[in-house]
Structure formats: C-alpha cells, structure tokens
C-alpha cells in the first residue's frame, strides 16, 4: 500500500495580504532609500517596521500610502494603486510630521475627516478611542504636543479603516496616553484591522506586534514573528549580587560580557545554565539571581550590527 506522506510545514495557507510592497525600490537623487523591499500587511495583524534612522521605514510607508511612487517594483493597497480613492477610503494614517490647521477645533477636524469616508466612525467614538473626548472643543493650536498626537490618532481612526498606518505614534506621549493608544490598537486588531507600525520604542513593538520586519539601509534584514526574531539572538542575561571578580567571570566559558553595577553583576551569555552552575558553585553568598531572555532590543541591535558588518565586508 502506498503511504502518502504530506509535508505540512505551514499550518494553513496565508491569507492574501491587504497591502504589499513587492521588490520596491526608491531612489532620491543619489540615495538608494529602498532596495527591492518586500512587505506584506495582513488582516488582524500588527506589523512592526523597525530599523535605525534612515533605514527606509518612512519611505516604505510613503510608497504604501501613495505619497511617493516606487522607481522599481510594486506597491499595492487591496490590490489597487495606493493613490486610488477606492483604496484610500479603506485606510487611515498617522504620519510623523503632520501639522494640522491650528485654528480648527479637534471636533471640527474629526468631522472634516469623517466626511471623506463612506462609513465613518462617530466623532464621539473617535474621540473616545484616542482619548481626546475632553479636547473636542479646543483649537488644535492650543493643544500640547502629546494631545496633538492623540488628535492625529483620532483623525486616523475617523474612517473606520481596514489598515491603519502609524508612523511613530507614541513619540512624545506620556505613559498614560501611550497606554490608551496601545489599548485601542489591541481592540482594533481584535476587530480585524491590520496595523502597520513604525516605532523606535522596541518594547512597544514587543508589546503590540505580531510580525516584525527590520530594515537597514533600505533592505530587509530580518522578517518574521516577534518570537522568531528574538530567537535569532540566543543570549540570556543573568543578573545577581555577587562579590566575584568581573575579570574572573569573563574568563568562564560561554560568557559574552560582564558588567558590574555596584553590588550587582550583569552577565550576558549563550549558555545560561552553565554559568549559573558556576555562580552557585563559586559564590556561597550569591543573591537576587535573575535570568532574562534577550528582548527584541538586543535582537535588534544584533541584527543591525550584523547587517552593517555584512555591508562593510
């Protein structure tokens, strides 16, 4: 009897992306801002676009929003040209540098943006989701920087979008405001909205993102789920109170670095268990032992450092 073996590596075929860049390149004068970049945005998913300054994140978003045209390759929103009205009716965006007419009130601005869309949210709803309900009557110019960011978020939500583009949305926001935004983003995602997020706060990407794409110098250098990216960096951090000499610890196998901070010692290692065994053996007065897995921040630094090394080679 023939045994049919199916090789199921993926759980289910991926749903068609709502938006994508395919081999997109963009040059500004002599600067190659994007080099054959592939990106996919899927429904009900948060895609975080990470990368150092100048990596091409804002350019990638500009292409997807139709603000710029790709020199090579394609940019598509719902299978349509990003510039088309039909596509734009289904998205919302919060741009990095968007000054808004200062003389209009927040409520008026939301009403204006609402009118562009066929099935918008109510003004009250936008305001509540963005945390600006008490600012509706205030003129935009009289708001603080953080309040202005939140008002821009309300504008991005006005059309009930299927994809929300957020370019550094929580820059300049205090913890409470950031919390409101995170909560709203999670609610929107639960409702099926796709989110494209660029941020410098890696803990934000860690908290919100399902998938991460890391750009450096215009190229994609890493792509995958947050846990997959984190796993690329297998380091662990050990923190403890110990009187042992840093130099001694550095000589142990598997130890990458040792930093002393007063009483505390912080050790970065690939093989946490071996190092911990040594610590327990060598220091009877060991205290406050903590082992932490590498976060996205460490992975990110490592990935971009690798990319630069590859570039230099």
């Amino acid at each position, binding site marked *: 009897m023939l045994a049919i073996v199916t090789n199921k590596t993926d759980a289910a075929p991926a749903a068609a992306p709502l938006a994508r860049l395919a081999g997109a390149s963009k040059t500004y004068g002599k600067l190659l801002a994007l080099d054959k970049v592939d990106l996919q945005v899927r429904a009900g998913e948060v895609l975080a676009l990470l990368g150092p300054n100048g990596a091409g994140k804002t350019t990638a978003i500009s292409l997807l*929003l139709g*603000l710029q045209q790709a020199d090579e390759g394609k940019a598509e929103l719902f299978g349509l040209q990003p510039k088309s009205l039909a596509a*734009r*009716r289904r998205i919302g965006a919060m741009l*990095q540098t968007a000054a808004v007419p200062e*003389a209009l009130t927040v409520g008026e601005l939301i009403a*204006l943006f609402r009118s562009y*869309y*066929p099935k918008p*949210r109510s003004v009250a709803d936008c305001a509540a989701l963005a945390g600006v309900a008490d600012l509706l009557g205030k003129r935009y110019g009289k708001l603080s920087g953080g309040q202005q960011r939140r008002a821009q978020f309300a504008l991005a939500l006005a059309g009930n979008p299927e994809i929300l583009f957020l370019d550094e949305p929580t820059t300049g926001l205090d913890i409470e405001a950031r919390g409101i935004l995170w909560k709203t983003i999670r609610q929107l995602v639960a409702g099926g909205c796709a989110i494209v997020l660029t941020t410098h706060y890696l803990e934000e990407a860690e908290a919100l993102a399902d998938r991460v794409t890391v750009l450096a110098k215009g190229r994609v250098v890493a792509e995958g789920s947050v846990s997959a990216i984190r796993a690329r960096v297998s380091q662990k951090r050990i923190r403890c109170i110990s009187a042992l000499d840093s130099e001694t610890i550095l000589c142990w196998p598997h130890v990458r670095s040792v930093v002393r901070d007063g009483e505390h010692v912080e050790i970065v290692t690939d093989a946490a268990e071996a190092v911990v065994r040594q610590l327990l053996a060598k220091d009877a007065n060991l205290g406050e032992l903590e082992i932490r897995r590498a976060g996205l921040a460490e992975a990110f630094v490592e990935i971009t450092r690798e990319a630069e090394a590859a570039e230099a080679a």
Partner: protein
Amino acid sequence: MNAATLGNTGIETKPSTHGALASYALESKFEFLRVLRTPAFAAPTLMFPPLFYLLFGILLNRGNAGAAHYLFATYSVFGVMAPSLFGFGVGVAIERERGWLALKRVAPMPPGAYLISKMAMAMLFVAIIYAILATLAFFLGHVRMPAVEWTLLGAIALLGTMPFCALGLMIGARANANAAPAFVNLIYLPMAFLSGLWMPLGMLPKFIGEIAPLWPSYHLSQLALMTVGQVPVAGVAGHLLWIAGFTVVCFAIARRWLARAG
C-alpha cells in the same frame, strides 16, 4: 455601554455627510472658519487695497472724478491679486511644508475639494474688497456708473481670481514656507505697477506698455477699464482668451509640481 468598546455601536449605520458636495461644502466652511480665526491674515489683506485707493485714488486726486473712476477700475483688479496670491501662494506652501497636505492626500478627500474651497475663500475676500472699494468710490470719489456696470466690474474682479489662484498655486507648490511670502510680494507689487494699475500706462515709459501684455493683471484691467469707456486693446474675447490660457497653463504646471512634492 462604554463608548470606547469596539463593536457595532461605534460604526455608523446612518450615512455620514458623505458625498462630494457635502465634502466640498464642509471643506469650504472650515477654510472660512480658519481664516476668520486668524485675523492677522484676514484684516490686512482686506484693508490694503481700499486704503491704497483711498490715498491714491481719492485723496491725492482731489476733486478729479475721472481719476477716481479710472483708479476704481484698476484698483478693483489690484484688490483681486492679494487674496488669491497669498491664499494660494503662502497658504499652500505652508500646508505643504508642514505635512498637512500629505495627510489630506492620504485621506480620500474628493479631488478638487482642497482647491475649490481655497478658491471660494479667495472669491469671498475679493467680493468684500470690491464692496469696500465700491463704497469708497461712490461716496468719497463721487464715481457714478449705471448699475449694470458696477455689477460687471464685480464680475470681472471675481473672474480675476482664477489666473491669480493658478499663479499662487504654482508658487505654493514649489516655494518653501518662509520664502513664499517674499516670492508673492516680488510678483504681486511689481506686476501691479507694470500693468498700469497705479498709474496709467500712457504715463509710463513706452517699453513698459510694450511688455504689459505679459501680465494677467494687464488683461484684467483692460476688461475693467471698459467701464470707464475705454476700448479694450485686444477686444473682450482676446483678453478673456489670454486669461483663460494663462490659468490653464499655470494650473497644469502647479499640478505637476504638487504631484512631485510628496
């Protein structure tokens, strides 16, 4: 039920005021509110041409009703230039530079709503300026014309917003926000002078009269001066054609520049 919870409560089932016409109206309304709330722009723009007219058209021409009449026609043209050039030239440059324009381009704003609302504002300004000029001309300048000619002059003034909005848009599409007012002034005042708006061309050196047809304000003033009994040099159709052509070309160029602006 918490308004912040997602679910069908947040999504409008009744249609919004969506529809191109509603958007245009809303856009214009908010443009109007914006300008009203920044009196620092509105007041000087409204007062400048009437004050100039008061000084040069009336006070310095004591008793010369003919001069007051002639200058009323040319100053009506002068009064068209500033709201259009500044509203588009400076306004668009600022909004472009600060990213507001980009945000609106991402939003599915009906095309044209932005420009139409700005033009509506410029026309409103022109209408107010004309009304002030007309009042000054009638009461202080003792200018008398048949009623139809007062209306005609007003209509010519409103028509004049088109070429200057187009020219202003060209400036706004390229200049950066700080340079834009300088560019506008550099164009606005010399052009007014060279078109014979302040002093009749007959009183200026000959070569100025020869290059005058380059300026849209010249063509507009030829139309306006019909109310003084002057026959337009190229005929009504000729001037109108030139103005239309100028407008179309400027808009086309501005559109390409704006598309590249990003």
